[in-house]
């Protein structure tokens, strides 16, 4: 199966007042057609920047990209603004975290949906509107006719996210990038939206790149997972492998700190000590070393390479093999 998207050694840097920072540092991963790939990590690990780099949505004045974003046999990073415009919303579309702020408050739902359709297809306005209504219906919004005439503030959070999904699917994209699409929603709405995404993915036969910090969501919908930490991919694996035998201490920490219905409420949930360092002082060696409970002196000496452990499973840790094999150390990351 050929891959839909191949991100190779993607590097995204920003010019800031305090110098250049590299928010994504050599990320590589792939998405196959019909596959759901999750990117997980804490806030500030570069997962959103990775997503937006694929479509080059970041401020062009201060952002530099390098590496390759291969899509449909071409490298999107070599594309100019005009060529990118034909990709955005058409072949690759995106859903954002907060559906309230991601919809323009002063235009009706109908206007915004129709505009997305008309941006890429030469059809009449009337036809675009009726297609937009059909799309809304597909997302399960009640009274799609009436919603078309309404403004974003008149809809609930879940309805707004359904509108965003309808908009993203309006031109039958090959790849859908969902940047924390359920984070701003309440739990029952979350699961409805996830279910809808999976249904529509099958109907539209699209690949999904799903960005989240919620491992519960990952377990529910992803086929493969890429774990990011401070701009680097630290582990990437099939979803079952990742949950059953995580190889990187950071992944183990994330898994251990996820609450479980069966866990004893009187025992404190394990946490990963410390916080993510800022991009202005990235450690020389392993970027996770300061927060790692398996750290060795040599971890800090030089950058660690991503090591392939088995087919489709790799980890950026010098102790990967040992940790991977040592199933006895199930959750020894934190106190």
């Amino acid at each position, binding site marked *: 199966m050929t891959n839909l998207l191949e991100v190779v050694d993607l590097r995204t840097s920003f010019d800031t007042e305090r110098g250049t920072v590299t928010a994504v540092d050599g990320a590589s991963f792939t998405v196959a057609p019909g596959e759901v790939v999750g990117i997980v990590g804490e806030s500030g690990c570069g997962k959103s920047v990775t997503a937006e780099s694929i479509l080059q949505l970041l401020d062009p004045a201060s952002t530099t990209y390098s590496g390759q974003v291969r899509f449909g046999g071409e490298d999107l990073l070599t594309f100019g603004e005009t060529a990118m415009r034909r990709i955005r919303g058409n072949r690759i579309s995106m859903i954002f975290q907060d559906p309230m*702020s991601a919809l323009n408050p002063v235009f009706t739902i109908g206007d915004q949906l129709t505009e997305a359709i008309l941006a890429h297809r030469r059809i009449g306005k009337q036809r675009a509107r009726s297609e937009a209504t059909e799309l809304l219906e597909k997302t399960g919004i009640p009274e799609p006719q009436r919603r078309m005439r309404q403004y974003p503030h008149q809809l609930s959070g879940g309805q707004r996210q359904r509108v965003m999904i309808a908009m993203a699917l309006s031109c039958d994209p090959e790849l859908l990038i969902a940047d924390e699409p359920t984070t701003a929603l309440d739990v029952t709405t979350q699961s409805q939206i996830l279910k809808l995404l999976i249904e529509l993915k099958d109907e539209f036969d699209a690949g999904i790149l799903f960005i989240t910090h919620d491992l519960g969501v990952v377990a529910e919908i992803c086929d493969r997972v890429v774990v990011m930490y401070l701009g680097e991919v630290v582990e990437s694996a099939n979803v079952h492998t990742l949950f059953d035998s995580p190889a990187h201490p950071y992944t183990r920490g994330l898994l251990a700190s996820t609450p479980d219905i069966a866990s004893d409420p009187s025992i404190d949930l394990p946490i990963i000590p410390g916080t993510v360092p800022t991009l202005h002082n990235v450690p020389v060696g392993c970027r996770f070393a300061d927060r790692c409970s398996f750290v060795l002196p040599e971890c800090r000496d030089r950058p660690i390479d991503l090591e392939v452990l088995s087919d489709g499973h790799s980890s950026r840790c010098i102790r990967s093999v040992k940790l991977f094999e040592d199933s006895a150390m199930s959750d020894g990351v934190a106190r």
Partner: protein
Amino acid sequence: MPLFATVVSDITIVLDIVDLEISWLNTGRILHKSDMCQRREVHMGGFLLRRAAALIPVLIVVAIVTFLLIHLMPGDAAAVMLGPEATPQQVETLRESLGLNQPLYIQFFTWVGNALQGDLGQSFFIGLPVISVIQAALAPTINLAIFAEIFAILVGVPAGIIAARKQGTGTDQAVMVGALLGISVPSFLLGLFLMLIFAVLLGWLPVAGYSPLEDGVFETLRYLLLPAIALGSMQAALIARMTRTSMLETLSKPYLKTAKAKGLSGNRIIYKHALKNAAMPILTTIGQTLGTLVAGAAVVETVFNVPGIGQLIVNSIERRDIVVIQGVILLIAVSYVLINFLVDVLYSVLDPRVRFS
């Protein structure tokens, strides 16, 4: 001239009160989160009616303050109008004809009643009804103000947008320095310079005067171009600054990223999606500056000898023609209120959240 000072401070007081009233009426109106969540649809007609009803108390305050103008002046109004040489008999006759001997509340209701019928009294000096004196002076001022405001919008809004899009670059700095100059250079000075360069040295445009619209629109524009630039440059600067600030705030909004992710062009994102969101503060500035244009017109009309309301005020003050001054102040205050009402209505056209709140 103490009378001049009194009148000027009176105009300021009236406008301040209008502003105060309006801002009081507006509190808690726009963009309240709780309002935004309400999904009750209110019809546009109902909205307009409610906004219009809110004008009534403002107009009452305007009427009272304008009416009291005559009584707030130091000394007796009739004596002031007639000057030091007048005999007591003359003063008494004038008091009688102005109705100053009647109780205050009767005077007020008579005045309001007449004003509502379009009768603002008789000019003592010109011997004409105040309303026709104002009518004669109104056309040049309205033309000048509209022309100046159009100039200000056409220059200010694009300049602000360009500055915001190129934030931190030389272009941005150039626009900001230009705006600073526009605010700092007084209109009469700018007017004199423009007159010197384009009328006297280059001879492209008439030095001063006015040509009514009936004699051809082009001729009117030729006469009003320099005064309009002199009058409008400060508004242009204010509008440019507000546009830049408002645009900068809007440009970082997530929905613009959505628009970009849809595959829209940069211009469509800026001029459709961003500008409509950034428009409210810009519109407020335009509304406010339109109100102050009339005050500014007094100076510019004097420099360019345009026979408008501004010149009428100055001349009436020199003549101590209080009845005319009163009429003009009422006119300015009422138009200020109406412009603010118009801006309010435009808000609701631009932002659906105002309509539904």
